[in-house]
């Protein structure tokens, strides 16, 4: 029921034109307010704190929906951040998750390649065992130079403006990996649907593209990898706990990231030149597939962690897989 309600909001407030406007530097306030005033940012908060105390399994389709709409504000990230932070430390506004935190000479702190770093009001970073909440207002934001990207490197001259929450740092990479896996899965499903639609509509050699066997086979491969990604992402949210397990999240991010590149490539191959244009909506999603693949570790990063876990265990691979 929450998923339908969120979808209704996004249908009205996150149309492709809105995504384009916000990416071009336009105000994200109307979209953000629509999400904030309906209380959706509190989905995971406990009922005592006025939240919906939603189990993670029910959060999954909501995050996928944010992916489907190429949502150009850190809504999913804010929901996760608000769940990770103790209630007294939760600020109002958009919170994004840092993929890394570096300490440099002279006490400078930096968060490289931070998704939504151009617009976020706060950045929540892992600092060893702790979390560090850093205000965007005092940050120096450096754009990546990538066309229309909202990703930025942020730095602070010192950590004085930050709020430190000890003890829960390890939860951030797990939540972030699972979260981006869900976003990728949602975007990928939409990309698949758009490609299927295009192949049904576009006529060449007197018949629709979808009637050509070579095209049918490409669409089948896309469907296979989209299905595998979606179930891998869902698995990370299949838990009674309040944070996804690191291993399930690692597999979710690995599987979706690997498929993201393949699915984006087939989508563009089947769309032809139109898919590359700015005016066609496919690029809103495929640009994000690539950006989200890179965010919080690609499959290259997570496969290594998973592989070390397998090799360090004394279980058979089949048992290991069952234990995830």
């Amino acid at each position, binding site marked *: 029921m929450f998923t339908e309600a969120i979808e209704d909001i996004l249908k009205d407030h996150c149309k492709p034109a809105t995504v384009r406007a916000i990416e071009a530097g336009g105000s994200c306030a109307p979209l953000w307010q629509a999400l904030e005033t309906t209380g959706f940012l509190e989905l995971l908060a406990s009922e005592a704190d006025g939240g919906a105390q939603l189990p993670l399994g029910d959060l999954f389709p909501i995050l996928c929906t944010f992916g489907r709409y190429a949502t150009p504000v850190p809504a999913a990230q804010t929901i996760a951040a608000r769940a990770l932070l103790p209630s007294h430390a939760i600020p109002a506004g958009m919170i994004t998750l840092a993929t890394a935190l570096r300490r440099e000479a002279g006490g400078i702190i930096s968060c490289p390649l931070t998704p939504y770093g151009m617009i976020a009001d706060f950045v929540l970073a892992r600092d060893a065992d702790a979390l560090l909440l850093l205000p965007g207002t005092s940050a120096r934001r450096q754009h990546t130079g990538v066309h229309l990207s909202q990703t930025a490197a942020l730095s602070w001259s010192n950590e004085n403006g930050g709020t430190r929450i000890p003890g829960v740092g390890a939860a951030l990479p797990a939540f972030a990996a699972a979260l981006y896996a869900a976003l990728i899965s949602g975007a990928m499903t939409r990309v698949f649907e758009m490609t*299927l639609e295009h192949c049904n509509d576009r006529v060449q050699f007197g018949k629709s593209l979808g009637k050509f066997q070579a095209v049918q086979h490409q669409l*089948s491969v896309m469907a296979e990898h989209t299905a595998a990604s979606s179930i*891998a992402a869902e698995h990370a949210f299949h838990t009674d706990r309040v944070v996804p397990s690191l291993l399930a999240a690692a597999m979710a991010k690995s*599987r979706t990231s690997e498929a993201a590149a393949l699915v984006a490539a087939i989508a563009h191959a089947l769309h032809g030149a139109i898919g590359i244009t700015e005016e066609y909506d496919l690029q809103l999603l495929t640009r994000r597939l690539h950006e989200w693949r890179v965010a919080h570790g690609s499959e290259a990063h997570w496969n290594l962690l998973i592989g070390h876990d397998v090799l360090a265990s004394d279980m058979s691979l089949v048992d290991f897989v069952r234990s995830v």
Partner: protein
Amino acid sequence: MESNLLSAFRLAALPVETNAFRAEVRTFLEQNLEPVPPDVRARSWMGFNAVFSKKLAARGWVGATLPRQYGGANLDAFSRFVLVEELLAAGAPVSAHWIADRQSGPLILKFGTEAQRRFYLPRICAAEAFFCIGMSEPNTGSDLASVGTRATRCEGGWRLNGSKIWTTNAHHSHYVIALVRSSGEPESRQNGLSQFIVDLSLPGVSVRPIRDLAGDAHFSAVFFDDVLLTNDALVGAEGSGWAQVNAELAFERSGPERVLSSIVVLEYWITCLRRGSQAATHAATIGRFATHLTALRNMSIAVTAKLAKGESPVVEAALIKDIGTEFEQTIPAVIESAIAMNPDDPVDPDLYRAVAYVSRIAPIYSLRGGTREILRGIVARGLGLR
């Protein structure tokens, strides 16, 4: 709107009761599996061992999903998933009873007469009747509807002429269930095909094993020369063969067997890495395999949940088989490369033999039960493209 096919792959869990069952299967395997080298275990569901099949049958686990009145254990789809997963992970030689257990038994139960059920099913469950499936012919491969073997009406039954090829285990089996033309012409295509149970000891039947590139002979050519069949050899309705075969293939395509064909060599490689010095070098590769296996297993359980609900997830099964066999084929390709990363490093001889065997036989994974091209066509049809 979300595609119906994709929304079929929602996470489902094996019921907790299957945990106790899994433990029973493990205990049985520990007590009854002969210790053999990995290249032998890697043959998994191509490993023929009638003695093992009889032991498994005595435990009640051949034809295990069949009802008790026919000698089965009435296991549900989830328990069957667990049984198959454990058998294949252990590299148990299940080939002798495999086809009867997985396809012929369920087919006879669904489409057979009561007399056929009473005759064949208890024998299947006792591992006394091994089955093979006669589909391909010398001129009929992927284009299955073009079968030319013909059954013609005669006094007291049917007269069968023609031949089948690539028939797994025909030279070890008691019966073949053959898809043949019983009316019409080759142009009639899917119409006029029927399935017959043929006793392979009947006069006029001859079987010639075909040796494969790994030195095994797992499949055969089967010739029918004026074979006289009684009326009760027909399974299901005359002319319904095509629909029956397709229902049967849904059982064949979705189980753990479409994901685990190469698991023995992968497990053994991991064992070698754990005791050697190259673990770190290959950790990412192992991590990728673990990730893919987890997703495939969950997809397979999702389809098993549909089977358990009595649905017939034909398209979903085709989708899993295509991506599952890709995983199975990647494993030997990657290990073959990894063991020769540095010619100065010694290669475990058992690993060398196992990966050599799997590399050579792996092309069959995407041939048996429907080629990639056929499966992708089925998926495309499920997407409404044809």
